[in-house]
């Protein structure tokens, strides 16, 4: 038998908890999971061949096509390759920079660097992408300075995306380095470990979750990008362009929905892989 007073107290706190949680949960379920569910369901619809209007009868053709057609496979591999290359470049650039910012630079230089890293985020995405288009053009500054330009294509796409997403890598890695106590580094060198060993055995394990967290941003942002590639990618098409083409050009919403399941699966897969590293606790 429960005491009546306690029970009413409990239900009151439950009501207030529900009051607090309902708005964000409703947002999550309706706007976020709801749209995903609609996407998932519409992948199994078909379209009227002539007008492109969606016909709501069940068919698994779209998913079958996505899984079997060569063009989708090549584009998927290309896109994952680009996303991995962008992530790798961002890691190579961000780790030394973040290390310097967190452990070497004076507070004033550190502040200046943090500002320098984050200011590009204020500029419009398109402006930055078009700046790279200018930079890489056959008669552009790069040709003038280096005598060579990779031209528009896959390399240009990787370079541009690496530039665009670099801040998303630098910030978490910087935060991770900052969290490494200096005492640990001192202890390591007091015990006679050379700098490289300290980095490998003390810093790397502590910073790795930060790198993994940053890579989630760079990987998923690159997976979904389809604008930079139309500006600097020449004739290259990525998965995003194919989805856009099926949605806008072909007006085939169901096939586009089925295609969107690929990046969704890739990103979920990547997140699961990262979860094992403990990186998700640092995002």
């Amino acid at each position, binding site marked *: 038998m429960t005491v009546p007073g306690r029970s009413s107290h409990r239900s009151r706190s439950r009501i207030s908890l529900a009051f607090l949680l309902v708005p964000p949960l409703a947002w999550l*379920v*309706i706007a976020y*999971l*709801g749209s995903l*569910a*609609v996407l998932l*369901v*519409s992948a199994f619809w078909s*379209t*009227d*061949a*002539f*007008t*492109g*209007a*969606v*016909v*709501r009868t069940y068919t698994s053709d779209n998913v079958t096509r996505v899984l079997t057609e*060569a*063009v989708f496979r*090549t*584009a998927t591999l290309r896109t994952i390759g680009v996303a991995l290359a962008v992530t790798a470049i961002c890691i190579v650039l961000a780790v030394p920079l973040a290390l310097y910012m967190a452990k070497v630079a004076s507070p004033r230089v550190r502040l200046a660097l943090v500002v320098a890293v984050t200011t590009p985020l204020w500029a419009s995405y398109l402006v930055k992408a078009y700046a790279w*288009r200018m930079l890489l*053009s*056959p*008669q*552009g500054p790069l040709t003038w300075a280096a005598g060579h330009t990779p*031209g*528009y294509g896959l390399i240009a796409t990787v370079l541009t995306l690496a530039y665009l997403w670099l801040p998303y890598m630098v910030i978490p890695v910087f935060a991770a380095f900052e969290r490494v106590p200096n005492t640990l580094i001192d202890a390591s060198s007091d015990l006679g470990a050379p700098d490289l060993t300290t980095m490998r055995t003390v810093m790397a394990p502590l910073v790795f979750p930060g790198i993994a967290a940053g890579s989630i941003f760079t990987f998923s942002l690159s997976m979904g990008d389809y604008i930079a590639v139309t*500006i600097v*990618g*020449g*004739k290259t*098409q990525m998965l995003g362009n*194919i989805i856009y*083409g*099926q949605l*806008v*050009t*072909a*007006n*085939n919403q169901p096939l586009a929905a089925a295609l969107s399941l690929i990046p969704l699966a890739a990103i979920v897969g990547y997140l699961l892989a990262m979860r094992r590293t403990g990186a998700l606790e640092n995002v």
Partner: protein
Amino acid sequence: MRTTTRRLGVALAACAALVAACSSPTNSGGANSSAPPKGEPLSALGDGEGQLNLVAWPGYAEDGSNDPKVDWVQPFEQQTGCKVNVKIGNTSDEMVQLMRTGQFDGVSASGDATLRLIYAGDVAPVNTKLVPNYDTISSFLKDQPWNSVAGQMFGIPHGWGANLLMYNTDVVKNAPDSWGAVFPGATEVKGKVTAYDSPIYIADAALYLSKTKPELGIKNPYALTSEQLDAAAELLKAQHGNIGEYWSDYTKAVQAFESGTSVIGTSWQVIANMLTADNKVKIATVLPKEGSTGWSDTWMVSSKAAHPNCMYKWMDYITSPQVNAQVAEYFGEAPAQTKACEFTSDKNFCATFHATDEDYAKRISYWTTPQKQCVDGSGDNCTAYSEWVDKWQQIKG
């Protein structure tokens, strides 16, 4: 455990309810192509609503922002009080998509968009009696298969023209006279060829094949059997190796020619005009000997237009002799309005563009939506536009 299952059940039920709510049958837009949805044309013209939202091809609704001398939107606004907002459409597919939102009053639709719009119920029939300038529009543009259904006009013809072969005269020394320059001849300027980034470009390859490989039996570049479509795709895959980049945004085409990224490829007269005005590179255009694909554009009224009176006023204004002449000269196309020929600044303009020459007009292969039912009436074994889109994505790889 039991509560978890129950919670999951509740969550799933909520999702299912949501999906059901979002997918309630609003499927009115034409399930088949036998008859367009019924719509009533406007019966009488009222006062303007003060606003007009248009989807237009670049160069069709100029307000002086590209070139201060090129402006026919502002005079219209002053005459009618309809403030014009223009959304540029870069491809017919984009236009169809924009019109489907129902947020626009009208569109300058090409023949590969018109029927899709009509049968999906996105545009309304037009009462041509309310458009006085319609009377003097070239007769061979009236009641055509791409702008009318069963004798009911669905728009007011605007103008027509051909896609051109454009090249940088400093790089391409021997003036080309054939589309072969971008197909087998493309190897000479490898990596600097451009092409229009839309599945409808497959028709350009088909047109070239119809002249160079008669054994394929291509009569109409929009009525292709599977084998003919494959042959065109083969040609375009070979071309893909020589392409630097494709264009669909016309400003990107201008920029690509100016930076030297592209030196030869299919183009519009309006792009050539902008390049000539900028004067950074020397270019020339030619209508190749094989003929060309082209467009015949029609102003259409949205079935959900919020400002139908302003749209009717616009359709009458844009096809009035003086304005139609201005647009046609700027865009580089034949005006639909026969009287426009008296007002062009170049007196030979209409002769150059064969504006009133019905036979010439018939030689251009106007953009049309490919359908299973062959568009030239030769049978029902043709490839539909959706197959063209898939082919186009495969060509680009």
